[in-house]
């Protein structure tokens, strides 16, 4: 074998010009001073492209130069008005001034071009990369350095309401694909120096900008470091969405449960940053990735917090019920029907038996058939064009359901059970978590078919044990419940009033826990309003704001 390999290695491959490699080879050598050589070099690398735009000009009417850019990426107006015009048409204030060639660059950058992002670069490798990112480069004959100016203009859609997480009460903005806009959406909600954005480039070909956002002094430092470490170890050709990152940084990739949360909502992201989490944004993806997560946040929505606490708690209880439904309802049905019909009230048991009279299969097979049909239907509805979707899904559900019952394929109660389950799984606000439970429904159903209620319990215990053993960036997955955390518990089953939760949840090990400030209210002294409503208003509370230094006596 080794002999063969050696031979193979000696065979010379035909040389293929790969632009990025060629550029890299040229990397360290500065560009030559001759304009023609520089243009030739660029043409060698990018000449095949229709949108390569090379415009030869004479700066101030005397120095030959060229502006080079990819016309598809840039804003032509900016290039014409702010760059080419002042270069070709000598501005008033430097008319008649002596313009020596060795100070030309300086003169152009500081006095001529009306653009804040004008910089000087030298290496061809770097210049090409900048060009590919939408900058215009100005080569000047006789000067090694070149000027590059950010003239990028990329079409982006406008900010719209998030499709996957809609709320009745609360902000309507959603992230879009452009990372700069997304960071702006966060920054405008957090005008504080604590809000930090670190960026890095991931992806050998896509060179996607990845931003790690957190609140310094609130997010746990070790978590931030861990996020950076895990991200920096990714080496892949393309990152097209945060989903790619998620799969690289999660703790247990084989678990059905999501260990990061992705959201389209800037307000949700900010709320999570404020709890001490870290958000990861990727250029080109309208989702932010939040870590570390715990299970209970998958059934929480921002709406819970923006509505009054009774409303929020009630809705949350309903959601938890839906979650439980979507996991075990069909298997409970199977085990009651086929193992312990004596548990049901007699009249109902008779009705069920009557409905099942014509069905040839055991309950578990029947439920599985309908479940699989439902899954297919659901997947199909997502793919269908909008115009057909609504009509077809109604046809699918109603007609197929009715027909299945009449054909003796399933009993009416099975259809009811499956419908409840499906609706239940849609009530879970997080798509990924709902998906996990949807998948786990099947093994439990099979267990229920074999062992009845005992099987359901075994399945549920197994799932819970797995969830209890999961960790997301060092935080136990079931955190406020077990290991117990009294602050966090106030926000699990019900959504306690905001003034009951003066501290951030402890399980995120935030370095600053104070949420509410101690704020005596003067206006309505007879009435307890605002922060005064909380139980230990007299002794608790934070000093100052989120600031860690704790000695500033703002109150």
């Amino acid at each position: 074998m080794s002999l063969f390999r050696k031979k193979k290695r000696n065979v010379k491959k035909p040389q293929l010009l790969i632009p990025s490699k060629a550029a890299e080879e040229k990397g360290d050598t500065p560009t030559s001073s001759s304009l023609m050589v520089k243009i030739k070099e660029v043409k060698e690398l990018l000449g095949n492209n229709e949108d390569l735009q090379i415009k030869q000009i004479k700066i101030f009417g005397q120095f030959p130069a060229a502006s080079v850019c990819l016309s598809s990426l840039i804003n032509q107006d900016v290039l014409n008005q702010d760059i080419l015009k002042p270069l070709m048409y000598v501005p008033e204030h430097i008319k008649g001034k002596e313009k020596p060639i060795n100070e030309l660059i300086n003169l152009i950058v500081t006095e001529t071009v009306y653009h804040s992002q004008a910089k000087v670069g030298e290496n061809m490798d770097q210049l090409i990369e900048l060009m590919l990112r939408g900058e215009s480069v100005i080569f000047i004959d006789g000067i090694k350095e070149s000027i590059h100016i950010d003239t990028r203009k990329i079409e982006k859609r406008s900010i719209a309401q998030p499709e996957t997480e809609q709320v009745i009460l609360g902000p309507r903005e959603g992230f879009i694909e452009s990372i700069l806009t997304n960071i702006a959406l966060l920054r405008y909600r957090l005008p504080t120096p604590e809000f930090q954005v670190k960026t890095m480039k991931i992806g050998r070909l896509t060179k996607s900008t990845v931003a790690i956002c957190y609140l310094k002094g609130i997010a746990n430092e070790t978590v931030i470091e861990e996020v950076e470490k895990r991200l920096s170890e990714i080496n892949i050709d393309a990152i097209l969405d945060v989903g790619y990152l998620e799969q690289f940084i999660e703790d247990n990739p084989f678990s059905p449960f999501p260990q990061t949360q992705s959201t389209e909502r800037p307000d949700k992201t900010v709320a999570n940053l404020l709890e001490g989490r870290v958000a990861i944004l990727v250029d080109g993806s309208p989702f932010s990735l939040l870590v570390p997560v715990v299970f209970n946040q998958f059934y929480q929505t921002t709406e819970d917090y923006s509505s009054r606490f009774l409303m929020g708690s009630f809705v949350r209880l309903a959601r938890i019920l839906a979650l439980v439904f979507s996991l075990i309802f069909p298997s409970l049905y199977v085990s009651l029907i086929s193992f312990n019909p004596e548990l049901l009230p007699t009249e109902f048991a008779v009705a069920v038996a009557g409905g099942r009279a014509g069905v040839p299969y055991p309950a578990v097979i029947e439920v599985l058939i309908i479940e699989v049909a439902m899954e297919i239907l659901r997947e199909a509805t997502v793919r269908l064009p909008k115009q057909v979707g609504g009509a077809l899904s109604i046809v699918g559900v109603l007609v197929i359901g009715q027909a299945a019952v009449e054909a003796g394929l399933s009993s009416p109660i099975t259809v009811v059970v499956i419908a409840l389950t499906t609706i239940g799984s849609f009530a879970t606000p997080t798509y990924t978590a709902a998906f996990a439970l949807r998948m786990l429904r099947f093994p439990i159903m099979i267990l229920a078919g074999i062992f009845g209620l005992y099987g359901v319990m075994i399945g549920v215990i197994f799932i819970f044990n797995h969830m209890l053993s999961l960790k997301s960036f060092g935080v136990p997955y079931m955190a406020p419940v077990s290991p117990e955390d009294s602050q966090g518990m106030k926000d699990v089953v019900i959504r306690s009033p905001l003034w009951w939760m003066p501290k951030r949840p402890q399980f995120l090990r935030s370095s600053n826990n104070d949420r509410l400030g101690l704020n005596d209210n003067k206006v309505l002294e007879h009435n307890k309003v605002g922060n005064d409503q909380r139980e230990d208003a007299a002794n608790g509370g934070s000093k100052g704001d989120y600031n860690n230094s704790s000695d500033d006596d703002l109150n």
Partner: protein
Amino acid sequence: MGDPKEITTIQATTILISTIIGVGVLPLPLFAVRAGETSAPFVTLTGIFLAAVGLFILAYLGMRHPQKTIITYSQDIIGKWLGRIFSIFVIAFFLILTSLAAREFGAVVVTGVLRETPLEVTVIVMLLLASISCRNNINVFSYIHNFYVPMILAPVLIVVAFSLKNANLLYLRPIFLGNDLRGMAAGMLTVSALFQGSFIITMIIPSMKSPKKALKASFWGILISGGLYLLIVIATVAIFGPEEIKQIFWPTLELARTTAVPGNILQRLDIIFLAVWVLAVFTTLFSSYYFTIHSLKELFQLKDHKMLSYFILPFVFFLAMLPQNILHMYEIIQYIGRAGLLITIMYPAFLLIIDFLRSWRRGENVAKQT
């Protein structure tokens, strides 16, 4: 010991509660009534006291050696080899305890719910569940216990609360001395044998955040689990009366059967009770299984216990299949339980005395030298 010490006092308490409350609850009233007739609650109470003494001794020992479990500190106290020999006894006892718990539960399931399923299948499923869960570290172990405790306590309390309307207080008299003392003493031993799971405290103490609070945790642990046991005995005796209980294998299950939920949502409660009871049995089994492999790991000074988890599965299963029928099984359980008290109470007491003597002598030596 790579795991951080994160077990809180509450977690230690909940571990104790969920470990103690196990399959033993089902036949408990029968054991108590056989020994004490109408004074079954009194027998239970004395049994709880005996178990509490054993638990406190263990907790105290653990606090004196906060970095070690009984497997390791026994080697310090009575010498390497003697300590190891006793440790083997302890491990073997817990191996048997695990298998008996699995078997007992399997028997309940097979007679109560799944009449056509072979006993072996129900037992192996339960054991598999425990052995897979045992592959986690001790922190996850405590999270699991902590999570399930409310779900273990709730069904018992609900059943007791709903059934009390049929209670007849006359069944509970005479409170003391319903039977001869010998019988009551034997019953006391049997009842306190049901608390043997509390031995797990010795494994937890080294991983506790503050081992000083082990005594507090064990106090609350025994108070809550003991209170629940006492409640069950009082409720069953007050409802069925001693004579009837003697005819029933699992009086607690019978108690659940007689209770009806208002509104007739479900016709029978006993099956739901049993289903939720799977949790209680699982946590007990999980504890003794975990204790067995954790101790084996410490005895052989291995780095990791994960491998052992599957390794001892066949042994446990084999032991679980040894009893020929339910009667035989309960004979063995009572016998093993009482013999086990030697290991779970006498052995720690013996260790504690020697430990005291040693530290006293050391103190004297120091005094002499100065």
